[in-house]
């Protein structure tokens, strides 16, 4: 059974359709990436899944059921816009939000203490939210989203604003949740995170789905048409318009997109001719970033 099913979902605003005719399914126990440029309709889609917004057309189902008060408690939601009651204490906020998701208050408090301990906030539990740093507040919101052990966790840009250490802590918790069988929807701009964590994705642009499916399958369908090269020397060796379609340069490392049917060995030959020292030469599947840019700008054109 799918954890989430969207069928022909449309959400209209006065001057535009935020989401139009969107359909996808998310397998139970998977990590699903919802991608797209700003204004693609990701947040609107997530809001319809958590029933903050109701679709104008189409249906949303969670674990096979239409959305209801009961399905609300099956979902944990970390919105992109962060904020908590400023004058409430950290522990109080978590007890309140946990209870609002259906936990008995004593149980909510017990779990809140556990999580505060685990995320290194135990000493601050009686501080007002106001007095906590942005990163701490974000961790508290993250706890609020998962405190009731929801089978479906929706995280909108969970890593923005976190330092690498805290981002790793959050990532570890997410992986643990998945191991316990939870389904996770991740909405983000960071393609590297999607590649590391997601099983399947849906790419949106201007309210429409432009690509979805299993991440590995998508990448495979593009074939190994990219060469990653690390070199020292003159970059002029890459001027091979018949072979190379696009160059993505990171300084000493470049990713070269091959034209269909082109032979990668020609690049190697050209490098030797130019007396460039090659340190790494690797045929890879296209990075998600490239697929993203190509799909989104292709649509724009």
């Amino acid at each position, binding site marked *: 059974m799918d954890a989430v099913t969207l069928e022909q979902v449309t959400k209209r605003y006065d001057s535009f359709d935020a989401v139009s005719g969107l359909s996808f399914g998310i397998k139970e126990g998977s990590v699903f990436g919802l991608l797209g440029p700003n204004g693609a309709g990701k947040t609107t889609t997530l809001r319809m899944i958590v029933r*903050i917004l109701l679709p104008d057309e189409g249906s949303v189902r969670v674990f096979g059921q239409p959305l209801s008060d009961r399905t609300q408690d099956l979902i944990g939601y970390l919105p992109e816009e962060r904020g908590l009651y400023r004058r409430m204490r950290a522990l109080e906020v978590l007890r309140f939000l946990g209870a609002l998701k259906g936990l008995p208050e004593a149980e909510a408090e017990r779990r809140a203490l556990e999580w505060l301990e685990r995320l290194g906030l135990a000493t601050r539990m009686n501080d007002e939210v106001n007095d906590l740093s942005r990163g701490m507040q974000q961790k508290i919101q993250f706890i609020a989203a998962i405190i009731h052990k929801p089978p479906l966790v929706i995280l909108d840009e969970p890593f923005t604003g976190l330092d690498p250490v805290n981002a790793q802590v959050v990532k570890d918790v997410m992986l643990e949740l998945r191991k316990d069988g939870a389904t996770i929807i991740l909405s983000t701009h960071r393609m590297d995170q999607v590649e590391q964590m997601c099983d399947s994705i849906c790419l949106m642009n201007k309210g429409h789905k432009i690509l979805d499916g299993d991440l590995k399958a998508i990448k495979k369908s593009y074939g190994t048409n990219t060469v990653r090269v690390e070199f020292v020397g003159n970059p002029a060796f890459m001027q091979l318009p018949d072979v190379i379609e696009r160059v993505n340069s990171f300084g000493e490392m470049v990713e070269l997109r091959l034209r269909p049917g082109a032979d990668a060995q020609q690049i190697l030959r050209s490098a030797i001719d130019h007396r460039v020292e090659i340190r790494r030469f690797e045929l890879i599947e296209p990075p998600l970033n490239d697929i993203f840019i190509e799909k989104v700008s292709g649509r724009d054109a």
Partner: protein
Amino acid sequence: MRKIWLIFKREYVTRVRTKAFILGTLALPVLSMTILVVSIFLSGGRYGSTVKIAILDQTGELGGAVETSLIRNREKSQPDVEIVQIVERPTASVEAYFKSRVAGGEIDGVLLLPVGLIEGTADAEFQAKKLSAMAMLGPIERAVSNAVISRRLSEEGKHSGAMKDVFRLAKIQLVNPTSQNSDDSDENNFAIAIIAGMVLYMTLIVYGMSTMRSVMEEKSTRMIEILVSSIRPFDLLAGKILSVGAVALTQYLVWAVTIGVLFASAAGLADVLRPGAATPNISISPTLLIYLVVFFLAGYFLYAALYAAAGAIVSTDEEAHQVQMPLTLLIVCSFLLFNVILNNPNSTLSVVLSITPFLSPILMTLRLAMQTPPAWQIVLALILSIVTTIYVIRVSARIYRVGILMYGKKPSIKELRRWLRYS
């Protein structure tokens, strides 16, 4: 229901803990206490005790008439008067003697009727030291006027008896218009009505704005998105409005109990502080308290729903100020109409205003405090108010649901109307 309760509890606890609430709740009892103590100290004796006055009549013609007029026309609110002595054409030393008796507290006041008073070339003089005797100034002035006028008329040879009747009629109409309206009218009805009206007026504004700020806080902190992913917006709104209302009722309860105890023990307090002192006799009937609560709730739900919608459509304090203005003016409107009701609670205008939705909560309470309006008017006012409230809550809830997720520019009326159609 459980979630509404959770919202209710959180709002209630957070609110009752604030300094503003604690200070606001204590302010009224402390103020009443102060007024009570001050009035005990200022009053010379119980209103029941007699005010002793001497009349020094230099004209030799008015003393008896003033006394008769003063005793005969005594009003309920006014202390008993005893004219201890009337001296006609007193000498300077006699005057000085009586003045010293006032200073010494043996009598309460001296009324001096100078030569030329009848002709209008001189003014009468009343000397008194204590507050209760000073309260006699008005009645004495009228009594002296009566005596002087009838004296002038009889000098002119007119038929003074008939003229006196004319004057008396005129006087009855002028002096105390409210006391004719009903038999159960107490002297303190007027004061109670104003106090009840003011309490309603203040609490409706304060708690209405409080509801609005609470909505705005959830919006500006972005807490709202987490909340509505767990609870329906309507339930959230309901929990919030019920909770703020409960906070207001808590405040009412504290006020009623402390002030009740205060006045109940006023006599005892007076005996301790200053034996023999007068105590203000203010009594609020329990029926009026019940009406006060009922009409507060009727008005509160109506205005709180509007204020909540107002809070939902704005993002900044500046916009909030603009949007709450018309709502506050609507409440101020009731306040400005106080006079219409107080002047004549039974005029057609008063009846219509006190039944009109938006105005009825305050104005009907005002009428209820002054007298007992016909039952159908009370019921009609309540029904109209409740129907209006239900409609307003439905519209407000829709605006609220859309508004809480909208940031940026304040919507126009046209946009608001479109919001009502969003699913």
